[in-house]
C-alpha cells in the first residue's frame, strides 16, 4: 500500500523527474541571459545570451498574488489537516482549534498518535516531538496565510480532505506520506517564486518554502532516504496544475479554485 501511495497517488519524485528537470533547464537558460543583462561591464562573452532574456520569467502569468496565496493556503490546509489527524492530542498553536483547522474530520486522531523511536544514530531526537512541531508549523502557516488574505481567503469549511486509512495505520506509511506531501509543497512554492509580483509576499513565501524543505529533509532522514528527491542537486518548480494532479486526490470537496488559470 505504501508503494502505491507514493508511486500512484502522489509521488513527488514524478514531478521532479518529468516536469521538473525540463522546466529547470529552461528557466536556467533564460536566467543566464537576464543576469548578464544587468551589469555586463565591457565583457564580450554572453552577449547572445543577454539578448535572449526578454521573457518575463512567469510560468503562470494569469495568477495574481492573491490567487497564489490562496493556492498556498489550500496546500497548507491539506498539510495541517494531515498532521492534525495523526496527533490532535496536544495543545494547538495560539489561535487554532480543531474545529477551525479540521472541521470535516474534527481532528479525529489516527492510530499513529503515538509515534515511536528516534531519528537514526547519532541522532537522539524523538519522532513524536518532531512531528508535533511539524503539525504546529503547518497550522501556523495556515493562520498566517489567512491573515494575509483577510476576506479573500478561501474558507477551510469549503474543503473536505480525505486520506486513505492506510496512511494512519503504520508509522512507515504515515512518514512516507508526510515526505511526499512536504516534497510536493517545496515544488509548489518554487513554482510560484517567479510568478509573484510583490517582493514582500515573495519574502514570506520563501520563509515558508524553506521550512517545507526542512520538514521534507528531516522526514527523509527518518526514512533513511537521500536528503532530496532522487538525491537531486536542485529542487524543482511545479505548476499549479501539476501539484493538483499529485495532491488533488486528497481534496474530496473544494470551492471554485482561482488556480490554475
Amino acid at each position: 500500500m505504501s508503494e502505491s501511495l507514493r508511486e500512484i497517488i502522489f509521488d513527488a519524485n514524478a514531478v521532479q523527474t518529468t516536469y521538473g528537470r525540463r522546466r529547470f533547464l529552461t528557466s536556467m537558460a533564460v536566467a543566464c541571459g537576464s543576469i548578464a543583462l544587468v551589469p555586463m561591464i565591457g565583457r564580450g562573452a554572453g552577449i547572445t545570451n543577454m539578448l535572449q532574456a526578454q521573457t518575463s520569467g512567469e510560468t503562470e502569468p494569469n495568477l495574481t498574488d492573491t490567487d497564489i496565496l490562496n493556492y498556498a493556503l489550500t496546500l497548507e490546509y491539506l498539510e495541517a489537516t494531515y498532521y492534525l489527524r495523526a496527533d490532535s492530542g496536544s495543545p494547538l498553536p495560539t489561535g487554532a482549534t480543531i474545529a477551525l483547522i479540521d472541521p470535516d474530520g474534527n481532528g479525529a486522531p489516527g492510530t499513529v498518535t503515538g509515534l515511536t523511536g528516534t531519528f537514526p544514530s547519532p541522532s537522539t531526537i524523538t519522532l513524536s516531538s518532531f512531528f508535533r512541531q511539524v503539525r504546529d508549523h503547518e497550522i501556523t502557516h495556515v493562520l498566517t496565510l489567512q491573515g494575509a488574505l483577510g476576506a479573500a481567503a478561501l474558507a477551510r469549511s469549503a474543503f473536505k480532505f480525505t486520506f486513505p486509512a492506510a496512511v494512519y495505520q503504520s508509522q512507515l506509511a504515515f512518514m512516507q506520506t508526510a515526505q511526499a506531501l512536504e516534497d510536493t509543497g517545496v515544488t509548489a512554492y518554487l513554482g510560484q517564486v517567479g510568478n509573484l509580483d510583490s517582493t514582500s509576499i515573495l519574502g514570506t513565501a520563501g520563509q515558508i518554502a524553506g521550512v517545507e524543505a526542512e520538514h521534507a529533509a528531516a522526514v527523509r532522514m527518518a526514512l533513511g532516504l537521500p536528503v532530496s528527491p532522487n538525491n537531486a542537486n536542485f529542487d524543482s518548480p511545479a505548476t499549479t496544475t501539476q501539484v493538483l494532479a499529485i495532491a488533488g486526490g486528497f481534496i474530496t470537496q473544494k470551492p471554485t479554485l482561482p488556480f490554475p488559470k
Partner: protein
Amino acid sequence: MSTSEKTIVASDDAPLSLYNEIGYETTKRASLGLGSLSYAGLATAGTLGVLIASACSSDKTTGPVVTPAVISLPLTSDTDILKFALFLELLEADFYTKAVASGILSGAVATLTTSIKIHEVAHVAALQAALGSNAFTANDVGFSFGTALASQSSYLATAQTLEMTGVGAYLGALPSITSKSVRTTAGSIFTMECRHYSAIRVFNNAPGGPVPNAFETGVPAASVLAAVKSTNFVTKGLG
C-alpha cells in the same frame, strides 16, 4: 551555458510582519555558538565599509598576500548577488570535500555528507555557468577549516553554522533579485540549503529539533559576510 543562479541581497522589509513572531535568530544563535557575532548585532553594528576595512587589515595571520576580493557589497545587481552566492558555495563545497576526505565521518553522517558535497559542487558549477565571464573559480579563493574538521561532532557543529548562513543569505537576497527566472533558480538552490540545514540538525541533535521554527529568516548580505569572516575560515578571496 547551462545553468542556474542564486542570490544574496539584503531584504530590509519584513514580509507580512512575520519577523516579530519568529524568534528564529535567538534560537539559532543560542544553539549554534555564533557567540557575540550574531546576525542581529552585526546588522546594526558596522557599516559595510568597516567590515571590509577589517577584512583587509586585521587578519594578517591568515592572509599571507593581499589578493583581490571576489565579491563586493552592497549587492546592487543580480550579478552581484550571484557572485556572492558563488563565494558561499565555494566555501561550502570546499568544506564538504575536505570533510569527506578527512575520514572522520561514519554511518548516516558520512552518507549525508557525501550527498551534500555533490550538491554544493553542482551549485558552484551552476552559478559559474550563469555568471559566465563574471564568474571566478576555486583558484581565486582559499579556505582553511582547522579544528572544525577534527572530529565528527565539530564537523556537524560547523556544518550547521555554514548551512544556516547559506539559508539566511539566499532568503535575504531572494526578494531583491530582479529577474523572475533567476528568482526561481535561486529558490531551487535555497531550498536545497534548507534541506541540508535540517538534515545536519538531525544528526547534530540541535536544541529545538531539526526544524525549530515555522518560518525561515533572511539575513542581509553584510551580516552574512561578517558571520563568514568571524569563522576565520577564509584565507583568500575577500581582499
